[in-house]
């Protein structure tokens, strides 16, 4: 479970035009459930995702992660809640790698290299055994029906395929939480339905899902356990 209390993120503080993207948000995201953040663009959904996903640090407020595996930090024992808001970047990154898998709106694949390499890329800094990572990547890609593109350059993939590569990449470190930012923005309805079906499989496998979307296919889906609506950086409904 992820717990946010009174989280604020301000950009350009102290300058003439400070901008508060997330304003005093308190929220609980239950483990093993699908939580959808909905709201118009600019409502602070994506910023909130980056704060939860250890990509950025809030200006104030606290974020606690529960149920992290022991050893994530040297002092952390099983069952402790970890307060992540004042951790240095290298610890945030270490937690992010193990805990969160990200699916980006723009897919964010590295151009010019193969599908397989793209999927393995997150594991490079961890120094895991190369052969083992490769086997795992091929398995993920196989599950997503991408085996025939294994060595193709990502530049040649269709939108749906590119997203599935991004999903395989998000899964490579076997994260407990999957975060998706407007995942259906570039997909047609049929592919969007396929995507939600895939999310259903992940939920069934026990993963926690956190999705931002203003697509009714996503926030209206029966999979969505919690729907939180945001506007102007604040929560207006749900939670």
């Amino acid at each position, binding site marked *: 479970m992820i717990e946010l209390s009174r989280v604020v993120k301000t950009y350009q503080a102290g300058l003439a035009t400070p901008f508060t993207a997330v304003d005093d948000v308190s929220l609980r995201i239950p483990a093993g459930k699908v939580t959808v953040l909905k709201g118009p663009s600019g409502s602070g959904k*994506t910023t909130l995702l980056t704060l939860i996903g250890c*990509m950025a640090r809030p200006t104030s407020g606290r974020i606690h992660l529960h149920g992290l595996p022991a050893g994530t930090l040297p002092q952390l024992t099983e069952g402790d809640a970890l307060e992540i808001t004042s951790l240095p970047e290298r610890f945030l990154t270490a937690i992010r790698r193990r805990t969160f898998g990200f699916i980006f709106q723009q897919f964010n694949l590295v151009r010019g290299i193969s599908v397989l390499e793209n999927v393995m890329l997150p594991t490079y*800094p961890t120094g895991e055994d190369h052969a083992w990572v490769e086997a795992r990547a091929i398995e993920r890609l196989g599950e997503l029906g991408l085996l025939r593109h294994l060595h193709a350059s990502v530049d040649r993939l269709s939108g749906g395929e590119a997203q599935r590569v991004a999903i395989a990449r998000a899964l490579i470190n076997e994260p407990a939480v999957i975060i998706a930012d407007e995942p259906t923005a570039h997909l047609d309805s049929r592919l969007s339905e396929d995507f939600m079906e895939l999310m259903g499989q992940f939920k069934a496998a026990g993963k926690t899902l956190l999705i931002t979307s203003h697509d009714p296919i996503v926030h209206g889906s029966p999979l969505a356990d919690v729907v939180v609506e945001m506007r102007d950086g604040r929560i207006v409904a749900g939670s």
Partner: protein
Amino acid sequence: MRPSVQRYRNILDFALSSLLRRKGRNLALICVYTLVVFVIASLIFFVQALKREARELLVQAPDMVVQRMVAGRHDPMPVAQAETIRAIRGVEAVQPRLWGYYYDPVYGGNLTVMATDDTALAVESVWVGQGVARSMRVKEGDMISLRGYAGPMLFSIQKVLPEESELVSSDLILMSPQDVRSLFNLSEGLATDLAVQAGNPRELPTIAAKIVEQFPDARPILKSEILRTYEAIFDWRGGLMVVVLSSAILSFIIFAWDKATGLSAEERKEVGILKSIGWESADVLLLKFWEGSVVSLTAFLGGVLLAYVHVFFFSASLFEHALKGWSVLFPRYRLLPALDGYQLAVLFFLTVLPYTAATLVPIWRAATVDPDAAMRS
């Protein structure tokens, strides 16, 4: 493999593939870099080769030469002084030497004429160096004519000196002492200078002091001094050229800085993606460090190799015009390779260090892109 080692390897692999993906841009950088290394390396190698030639030249020189100075100018020396000098303690041998320069108007160059006591050399015949034989177009058995004090003198060429000693003997004509005397009109009791050998080279300064004490007009010159002077002059010349070239180094650094700061949008986006999928700033720094090392190493090796070929196979032909007037010696037609770790280290310092330092801040800037930048775009 240990994870930390595997991490280095993974990131190195990715650095190589990144470099290859941006071939055009990196190729331009490597070309300019290689050129800078090449120019400075050529210069350093060339100076080093000249220093080495000078040292070789002096191997055969006597430990000490005593000249006579009259009114601040070099003057022939009374042979009788040799006896007095031989009496000084520590002196092993004193050899009066007869030599001089002969200007040849036909081919417009100076020749070194020297007397030899070698009895194999008959009167009115000479041994000549390769350079002399080449420029006068003569071979063994031919006759040459030299303008002596008392009119033209004819010599038969008994031998052309072997090639190995070309550096030392290229411009040399050896003849018997009496021929040298009649060529230059030197009277019997005079020599050009005296060559002094000491039993223990460490005593040479003391001996020199005693000679000056006895003959105030004598100027003793130690071999070590000549060597020192040559070294200093060559180092000075080489350094001077490096200073001149520093403008090239400087503009290269600016170029490198510019390349590094002007990370393309594509590259910036890529770093953003890497950070967003779990790379840390330190990982990106390592990636950029590998990229820089590969570029530096390639350019350094390439530049050194090209310079080596240039200097030792083509006798620094690109510098010929700038360096021709410089040489105190007659350089060989092909310089002998003289290369050591020190020269390479100096070259490394002069080229790779500035490049590395210039790219540190831009690299850090690239590496500390916010991980969420990739999401906000």
